């Protein structure tokens, strides 16, 4: 019931006061206008917020919003014009203080005015898209005060003057400065920029242009950079104290341009103190400062880098081409390493490990190391030296460090295959003479080479190690099966796999009878256990230990080469032997013999032989005697060991030739690989791609590549395009081709071109052959009547049936040549 009753009431609209007074708007506005005056006059405490708010509220409700708004604009403008005058009247330094005081007043007044006009801000202004009160107050301040003709320029010049005074060392009122600048920022970023920032930057540019000119005339490079750094930091600090944070980039740009960018070249090349001097003297601090300053300007770092690079190349070039310094390969490499260390630490300590600098360093090293084509040999010699003696007593970690450094140099080498050649020779000598210090170090280096260049690169080197191990076992077996050999000379044989070792064709010399009997025993033992092998003696590579008794009965153990041993043994049966007699008896090649005699007769302290006439060189007419007067404070005397040495000129030529010979198949393989995927390619692109593919091993010579291409064309791997002679294409048969019928009629012989360009011959079933043909995308599998096929091991004059030659895929015209050469 009661619910029902409640529902029945009716709600009359709230009786809102209807305005009848025609002067209502005038009257209300004058109250508000008065209040605004009072607020500006610091008399607000007598005003009732409620009354003012209510009046403004009602004006808006009664659609007098426009009158209220325009009244506000007019009143505030009038006040600001007054304020402007009082600021203009302020004398000297008081000007800024007065401006700041009035700005604070205005801000506070504006806040109060906005609060009482809040309802207008909330409704009337958004509806009419007018400027809100607070923003309006700021705009009016800007237009009537800051932009008044008598204030604008005075304000700017005072601000700039203060900055200048601070730059010249005076102390200024930073608080006031901050307030004024903040006012400009509050008025909008465009006011701050136009009325202060732009002119500030211009004046700053002028200032630093002058100052930098002064400094550059009287300071050295290091001092100049110190001053520039100081100025830069000052400006950054200034921004944090009283400027807009966004100005930091702009003002630092000005300093950077005026003090650094404009003088970059002069600074870098400054006489006696420029970049090169800093580098030479390891001035990390100055270099670091230069790096940090230059990085801030365009092309700054590239300037440093370029100068460093050209200096480094110059130094490096001297290092690798100076004939004096080439005398000692170990010293040569050590100098390279020292130079690298020097620049590594400059880059890490001064150039914050900048990748681009590291790259520049690497490319410089690569540049000059390869200027000298003996670098690969020398690096290998350096390793040889280290692994022979240099590493004795060095900890495992230090060994690794040295090896890593060597690897770094190795990486710079363009002709890695040349290094491999030498490394193989030097390793062989180390292994055979048992002179390697650390097996672990040897293997560690091989692992490094393997990771760098792949399995192929090191497989032969590893083979050498295997041979050494196997030989040990073989020798044990040999002596176990010959227990009678405990007396007399001992033979140690290393069985080397052909191909793994850098064997040179050599003539076996005539061994002393007792030795050759022993060798014979070994030969029959070895071949007895390994049938089908061939042993040939490399007497040029062996060593021997001999016990010798000299004139006064002094006994020594002589460590000599096999050749030397053969020579010395002759003197068991003769007192005097002429050169010719020795040569004839031993059969040692002349050049080797001369060297071996020289080391026994002409070297002081090792002269177990005496020669007539006395001279430093061996002549064909010389005669030799045992030197009875030989003395040495050591019991063991090492004579003319087979030390790896820098190669002589002809030897060098020979090595080079062997390297070139080895490169040919590699270049061909690369060409075939590339052409298989590309099918058609022009000359320049082949060159480029081959070079790229091989660059991890060596720098292929374009002329050589061209020769290889010609050779491949000759052999029908490639053909020239009929129209464009610069264009090459692969012959279609490359995938698979039919070669011959096998002995068993159900099988066919198929040749398959392998990755490296070699050809593999496969026996396949008929069915499989069809598959192969299909997989090679042949149009129709070729079936050749057996009558037309030559028998296996066929006649090279055989010519293919005409029909086959024109079918697809094209069969090679000179297929016969392939097969026979295989």
């Amino acid at each position, binding site marked *: 019931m009661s619910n029902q009753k409640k*529902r029945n*009431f*009716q*709600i*009359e*609209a*709230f*009786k*809102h006061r209807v305005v009848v007074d025609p002067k209502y708007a005038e009257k209300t506005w004058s109250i508000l206008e008065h209040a605004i005056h009072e607020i500006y006059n610091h008399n607000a405490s007598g005003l009732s917020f409620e009354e003012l708010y209510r009046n403004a509220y009602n004006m808006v*409700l009664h659609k007098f919003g426009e009158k209220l708004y325009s009244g506000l604009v007019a009143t505030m403008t009038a006040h600001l014009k007054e304020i402007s005058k009082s600021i203009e009247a302020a004398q000297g330094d008081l000007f800024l203080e007065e401006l700041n005081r009035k700005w604070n007043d205005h801000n506070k007044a504006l806040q109060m005015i906005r609060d009482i006009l809040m309802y207008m801000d*909330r*409704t009337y202004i*958004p*509806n009419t898209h007018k400027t809100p009160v607070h923003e309006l107050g700021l705009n009016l301040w800007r237009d009537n005060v800051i932009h008044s003709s008598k204030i604008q320029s005075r304000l700017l010049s005072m601000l700039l003057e203060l900055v200048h005074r601070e730059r010249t060392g005076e102390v200024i009122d930073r608080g006031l400065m901050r307030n004024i600048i903040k006012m400009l920022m509050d008025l909008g970023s465009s006011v701050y920029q136009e009325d202060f920032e732009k002119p500030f930057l211009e004046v700053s540019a002028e200032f630093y242009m002058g100052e930098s000119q002064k400094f550059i005339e009287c300071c050295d490079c290091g001092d100049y950079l110190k001053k520039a750094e100081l100025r830069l930091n000052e400006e950054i600090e200034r921004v944090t104290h009283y400027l807009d944070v966004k100005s930091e980039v702009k003002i630092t740009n000005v300093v950077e341009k005026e003090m650094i960018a404009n003088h970059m070249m002069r600074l870098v090349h400054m006489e006696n103190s420029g970049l090169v001097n800093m580098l030479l003297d390891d001035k990390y601090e100055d270099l670091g400062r230069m790096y940090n300053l230059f990085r801030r300007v365009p092309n700054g770092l590239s300037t440093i880098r370029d100068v460093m690079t050209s200096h480094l190349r110059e130094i490096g070039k001297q290092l690798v081409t100076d004939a004096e310094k080439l005398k000692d390969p170990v010293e040569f490499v050590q100098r390279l390493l020292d130079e690298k260390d020097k620049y590594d630490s400059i880059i890490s300590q001064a150039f914050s490990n900048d990748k681009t600098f590291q790259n520049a360093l690497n490319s410089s090293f690569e540049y000059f190391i390869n200027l000298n084509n003996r670098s690969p040999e020398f690096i290998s010699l350096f390793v040889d030296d280290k692994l022979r003696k240099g590493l004795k007593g060095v900890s495992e970690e230090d060994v690794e460090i040295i090896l890593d450094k060597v690897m770094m140099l190795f990486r710079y080498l363009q002709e890695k295959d040349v290094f491999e050649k030498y490394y193989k020779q030097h390793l062989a000598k180390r292994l055979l003479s048992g002179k390697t210090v650390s097996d672990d170090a040897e293997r560690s280096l091989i692992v490094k080479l393997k990771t760098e260049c792949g399995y192929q690169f090191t497989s032969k080197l590893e083979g050498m190690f295997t041979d050494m191990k196997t030989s040990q076992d073989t020798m044990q077996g040999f002596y176990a099966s010959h227990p009678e050999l405990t007396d007399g000379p001992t033979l140690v044989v290393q069985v080397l796999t052909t191909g793994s070792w850098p064997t040179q064709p050599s003539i076996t010399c005539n061994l002393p009878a007792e030795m050759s009997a022993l060798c014979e025993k070994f030969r029959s033992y070895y071949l007895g256990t390994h049938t089908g092998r061939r042993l040939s003696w490399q007497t040029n590579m062996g060593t021997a230990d001999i016990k010798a008794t000299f004139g006064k009965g002094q006994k020594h153990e002589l460590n000599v080469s096999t050749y030397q041993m053969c020579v010395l043994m002759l003197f068991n049966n003769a007192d005097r032997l002429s050169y010719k007699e020795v040569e004839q008896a031993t059969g040692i090649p002349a050049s080797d013999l001369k060297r071996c005699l020289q080391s026994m007769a002409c070297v002081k302290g090792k002269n177990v032989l005496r020669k007539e006439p006395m001279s430093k060189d061996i002549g064909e007419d010389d005669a030799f005697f045992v030197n009875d007067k030989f003395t040495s404070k050591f019991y063991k005397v090492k004579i003319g060991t087979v030390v790896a040495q820098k190669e002589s000129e002809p030897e060098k030529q020979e090595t080079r030739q062997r390297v070139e010979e080895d490169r040919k198949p590699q270049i061909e393989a690369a060409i075939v690989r590339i052409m298989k995927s590309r099918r058609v390619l022009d000359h320049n692109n082949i060159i480029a791609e081959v070079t790229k593919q091989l660059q991890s091993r060596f720098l292929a010579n374009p002329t050589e590549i061209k020769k290889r291409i010609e050779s491949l064309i000759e052999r029908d791997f490639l053909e020239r395009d009929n129209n464009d002679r610069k264009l090459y294409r692969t012959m279609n048969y490359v995938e698979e081709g039919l070669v011959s019928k096998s002995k068993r009629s159900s099988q066919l012989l198929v040749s398959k071109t392998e990755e490296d360009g070699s050809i593999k011959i496969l026996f396949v079933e008929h069915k499989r052959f069809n598959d192969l043909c299909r997989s090679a995308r042949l149009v129709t599998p070729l079936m050749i009547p057996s009558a037309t096929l030559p028998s296996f091991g066929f006649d090279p004059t055989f010519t293919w049936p005409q029909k086959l030659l024109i079918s697809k895929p094209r069969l090679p015209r000179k297929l016969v040549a392939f097969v026979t050469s295989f």
Partner: protein
Amino acid sequence: MGAACSRKRDQLDNVDGFDRGVSGRYCKSGSSKWLATTFSRPVLEIQREKKKCPSLLELCTHKIREDIDNYVSFSTLPRDLSQQIFNELVKSQRLTDVSLEAFRDCALQDLYLGDYPGVNENWMDVISSQGSSLLSLDLSGSDVSDPGLIYLKDCVNLQDLNLNYCDQISDRGLKHISGLSNLRSLTFRRNSAITAQGMAALSGLVNLMKLDLEKCPGIHGGLIHIKGLTKLESLSIKWCNCITDADMKPLSGLTNLKSLQISCSKVTDFGITYLKGLQNLSVLNLEGCPVTASCFDTLSVLVSLLFLNLSRCNLSDDGCEKLSKLGNLKVLNLGFNDISDACLIHLKGLTNLESLNLDSCRIGDNGLVHLTGLQNLKCLELSDTEVGSNGLRYLSGLCKLESINLSFTVVSDGGLRELSGLTSLKSLNLDARQITDAGLAALTSLTGLTHLDLFGARITDSGTSHLRNLKNLRSLEICGGGLTDAGVKNIKDLSSLSLLNLSQNCNLTDKTLEMISGLTGLISLNVSNSRVTSAGLRHLKPLKNLRSLTLEACKVTANDIRRLQSAGLPNLVNFRPE
């Protein structure tokens, strides 16, 4: 008080047909993709917004709404207040022709009555009493007829007028609004009574910026009357199949046009030539028009053109080389055309493209190579094409891609590796049978994914372990049949999920519902065709944001769901079985 601020009037641009996000193939049964697009944005608001204290003004408004029949007039209230009350009544559907009377002479500015029930002739008197204050009026879907529009004569300041779906209005009614020269926007969708003759009334609306005549089949010949409306920026006459080439001629001088929608009309290449001078045109929708490649000659001179829809235009490879002239385009829709890989080569130079739709075109792996240079591409639609795994490698460098649709392609597991570097990807559709668990392993790096569709893919429990790190997923569909409760374990912690579709996995039980009860952000859930029972429904109670629930072919009745709804899921508006 805030009522005055929420004007709809200022919204002018509405680029329909150019959805840049997840593309809309909504019709697939069982999949609830429509939710992904319609609900995806409000999710965050629903979840995060803390309840704010209602203002006294709001409390009063609500109170008035409750007793509205007791109020005689609001005319003495300030306009802002009466407007607020009016909006509240419309929102709560409490406004009737009786209560409307209280708003007579209230000087209201906005009357949004679109699709409001019961609006008719009788409402017009009070509407017109707002007089010159009225700025925008929406009468869409009302029964207002021609005479009713006479009332609008007094509303001289009217800027926006919306008369969509008003089938009682004809040429005669249009005459009555011919004097409303302040109109900026006029929409008249689906009106079969309006003819060319009636459109003469529009010629005086010189301030018109937007005109929408979608689905008006009788307006052929009428566009001549809008020839002088040079302020026009947006014109839609899509689905007006009466529109022919001749109708394009009057548009040639409307140089302020920015958006023109003429899809599904009879306009041909010749008609398009009239558009040459529209140098401000940025949006052009030609979907389903009988145009050929020759129209590219005209389109290439439209320097501002950014969005172009050419789907279903029967384009073939012939002449497609001219596509290369449209280098400015950002969005291009070529879906459902008879174009092949040979056509794609001409897209090479369109490096500004951000969205490309090739749905159901005859393209395959080889064509995609031409897309490698489109480095700005964000959205790529390849659904129903011959694209396979080999083609995907050409996409691996398009690092700005945010959305790829590979549904119904022949892409298989092996190809997905190519996508693993596309870390900007947000949406990925892999609805294809040959995708399996193995393929998902390649997706673990795509932690930015928000939408992943594996609808038909053959995903099993072990495959879902690859989804565990995709913490940003908001929608996920796995409906290949291979999922059991054990696999749902890997899904239960994807707390960003708002849409989850696990239907067609017939081994899922109530246990699944229990596990996903922590996914409180879920707005839509589908576990149809499973062994879920009504007993499991209680686990869904924590899902307070759930708006759609589908449990077809389960042991669950409509009543069970209704009980759940009233017990604690007030937001549930859509459920099956119904």
